[in-house]
């Protein structure tokens, strides 16, 4: 009987320790997701040109990260999270391509990109004059369009390196490719954007 009680006590103590660890992990995950969610949303939004779709993609990425990688170390979360998000964006583009083909076959245009209003979707920066806001909006609008028109891998490399601030190794982990490929994609993206944006950015 005493053996049973001792076993039960050990089990409860072990459960409590696990609970505390899980609570700590939850707080760390919460901090990580809070720090990354807005940037992730904007990155997804630029990639899919739809805020609602971007919100869905970010939420799915957050859920998958928590479900599958909560036990990984903190410094692994950012590349893993962005890898999930980028996979989601790629899947979304594939689905859109199939959907567009089906719509064309049925005689309807499946291109909803025309419905995307960059100005309406643009955020309202705080603490600046209307002129500065307008300038910033216009510049960001131009940049978003240019980034959105980049080839997929170049767009991923540019956004992860420039917008999210991941290093080459982290970007390579997020994109699932070599560091050399990241450098190549990023360099091509920057040159392409500079050519596209021209004198606005000189």
């Amino acid at each position, binding site marked *: 009987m005493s053996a049973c009680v001792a076993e039960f006590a050990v089990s409860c103590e072990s459960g409590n320790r696990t609970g505390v660890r899980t609570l700590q992990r*939850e707080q760390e995950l919460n901090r990580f997701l809070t720090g990354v969610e807005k940037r992730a949303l904007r990155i997804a939004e630029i990639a899919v040109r739809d805020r609602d779709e971007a919100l869905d993609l970010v939420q799915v990425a957050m859920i998958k990260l928590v479900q599958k990688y909560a036990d990984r170390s903190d410094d692994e979360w950012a590349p893993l999270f962005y890898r999930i998000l980028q996979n989601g964006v790629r899947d979304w583009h594939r689905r859109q391509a199939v959907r567009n083909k089906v719509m064309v076959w049925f005689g309807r245009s499946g291109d909803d990109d025309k419905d995307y209003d960059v100005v309406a979707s643009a955020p309202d*920066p705080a603490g600046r004059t209307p002129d500065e806001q307008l300038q910033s909006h216009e510049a960001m609008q131009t940049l978003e369009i240019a980034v959105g028109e980049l080839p997929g891998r170049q767009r991923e490399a540019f956004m992860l390196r420039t917008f999210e601030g991941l290093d080459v190794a982290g970007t390579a982990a997020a994109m699932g490719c070599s560091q050399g490929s990241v450098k190549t994609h990023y360099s091509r993206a920057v040159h392409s954007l500079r050519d596209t944006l021209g004198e606005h950015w000189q």
Partner: protein
Amino acid sequence: MNERDDMTTDTEFAQQARQLFDDSVEGLDAATCSRLNRGRQAALAELNTGRRVWVQWAPAAGVAAAAVFAVVLWTGSQPADEFTPQASATDFEILLAEDSLEMLEDLEFYSWIDFDDETGATLQPEDKVG
């Protein structure tokens, strides 16, 4: 423009793009931030769900483990029956022994030895003694 100037321009371009992006992130409207917050809470709830399942089953698992442990201890403390395994081993030895096969061949002879001519009955072991 040489390569170094080109790299500097690339860096400046990236910094400018980053600044614009940061501004757009900071300017996200409250409704969007609220939806992000709800999404984050839903994701974290997945972690809690997993933990709740574990916490829910932990006492039952503990009691079950304790019961199994107790049964193992109780079984181990019982006095061992020394004869049962030995008997079965002996049976095995008898069956495999060459003598027993010979005895089976001469079964008729052994039956004749055991037969008592006077009583017509088979001799019991105590009858043979003495």
